């Protein structure tokens, strides 16, 4: 049977550690998510001041994608509109929702902030990734109780089969209070018979997802 698609790269951000393709590339000392993300940002010498305006979910996704793509052109992909971004999480933007709610809870100190409110939508992280990497393709943010490899594999395969996209940044980006969990995969089509990369199938997705970093 022809192997159609493969997982080219993957990045995991969890428990104060960041790994790329199974190799640990950073261990932070900060426990609070926001501080850890800033620590990582500085460690990797990322020069992108807008990072500091992002909410925690967007910082998590931005960092994971930054390391996943390492500024390289995705091989074989010429147009930014051929790259899809399909993301999942359970909490949506709950973390930022609570911050916005706090700013309006007390009528005597009622100062809703537009820069907080804009992040009360989980898909903004997709926007941040697209702006950074100039990606114009099909994208969707789904909410799911837990990471579901079968579901992700089924839908991303459908998009690749139908040529809606030629490659896909996909995975799980969860951020809820002090808990964060980022697992991003770069999925690509390959000509048949090409070895060397991990096959895009639910078992492999789960295996990677369960990796410690």
């Amino acid at each position, binding site marked *: 049977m022809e192997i159609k698609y493969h997982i080219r790269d993957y990045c995991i951000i969890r428990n104060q550690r960041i790994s790329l393709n199974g190799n640990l590339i950073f261990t932070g000392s900060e426990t609070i998510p926001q501080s850890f993300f800033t620590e990582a940002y500085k460690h990797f010498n990322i020069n992108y001041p807008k990072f500091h305006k992002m909410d925690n979910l967007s910082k998590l996704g931005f960092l994971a994608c930054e390391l996943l793509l390492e500024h390289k052109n995705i091989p074989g992909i010429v147009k*930014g*509109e051929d790259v899809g*971004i399909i993301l999942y999480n*359970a*909490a*949506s933007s*709950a973390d930022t*929702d*609570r911050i*916005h*709610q706090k700013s*309006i*809870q007390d*009528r005597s100190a*009622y100062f*809703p*902030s*537009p820069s907080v*409110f*804009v992040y*009360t*939508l*989980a*898909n*903004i992280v*997709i*926007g*941040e990734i*697209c*702006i950074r*990497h*100039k*990606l*114009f*393709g*099909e*994208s*969707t*943010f*789904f*909410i*799911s*109780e837990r990471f579901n490899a079968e579901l992700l594999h*089924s*839908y991303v395969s*459908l*998009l690749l*089969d*139908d040529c*809606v996209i030629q490659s896909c940044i996909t995975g799980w980006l969860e951020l809820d209070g002090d808990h964060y969990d980022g697992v991003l995969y770069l999925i690509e089509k390959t000509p048949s018979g090409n070895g060397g990369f991990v096959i895009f199938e639910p078992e492999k997705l789960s295996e990677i997802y369960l990796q410690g970093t």
Partner: protein
Amino acid sequence: MRKVYAASDNIISSLGFTTRENADFLMAGETGIKLHEDIRISPSPYWASQVNNSVLIQQFSEFAEPKKFTRFEQLAISSIRDAILKCHVNFTSPRTLFILSTTKGNVDIFDVRTNYAVDSDRAYLWKTASIIQQFFNLANTPLVVSNACISGVVAIIIGARLIRSGRFDHIIVCGTDLVTEFVLSGFNSFLSLCAGPCKPFDKDRQGLSLGEAAGTLILTCDKDLAARPEVCIGEGYSSNDANHISGPSRTGEGLYIAIMRALEHSQSKVDYISAHGTATPYNDEMESVAINRAKLGDVPVNSLKGFWGHTLGAAGVVETIAGIFSLRNDFLFKTLGYSESGVSQSIAVISENRQTTVHNILKIASGFGGSNASLLITK
């Protein structure tokens, strides 16, 4: 390749509790956007399009216990129930999937003053979707799309793809969002709300009107279950501007890409465009740019936001249902609130109701995060 038919539908909004009731108000040119006073939502009176709450609760209590459900759930469940009762799709079958489209779900749970007798985990969108699933005894875990204001269109696009690919036979798409203090205060901080019913594409437009609604559209592969005349959901795409997280691209980049990708698959001419038309200065301008770039500047176009306001996660579904009504009845609704063009590109805004043959429509939407979507629907 399998076709995707529109079976039944429902709209619950300020303009009624069925699609027909809503359509009657649209035909009469009456807006549901009114001045409200409710200190739980705003310290001062505010303009919005809101569902009649007493009627909602009264109708809901005829088949379920209101106290067990949040307002969001009462709205979504009522809408889905009406649509389900109007068609013969086997909704408990494992070949049926429910897709929920919403931006904020039960966000009112975060407010300490809200007093629902439900667990706080209902604030999670997957959980509220699961409550709805259980209510109808649906076989599969629902898909939840939360992608800003394009969610509704995207949910329909995904539903159609899943049917076409043979993964499912029937899809229940429900888009629902509430008017809440959470959302109203947020849009206020953007200074993007209009004091009065909004004026899409108009030179005096001042911003958007918020609305709440539930729209349910049931899709099926089974031609015998399709409502008549048959309407098919065609191809659709989403695309990103890659420009700014809240402001749309000045060149309409993402929307242009989404439109062109949809048109690639269409053999026939587009007769009518149902635009997003939120009546903010930037959105409407951007849409006119994208429509023109796609060489659709002569195609009749309207926005329905003047009737329902911007219903966020419900918008794409509610407005697509209105588009399907237009297709079935060869009737185009005027753009309520519009009198004179206020966009730089020439587009053919429908300013009066029109009885005219309609075969192919293009639904477009844009949202925060630079997101855009397009969808073709054919008779």
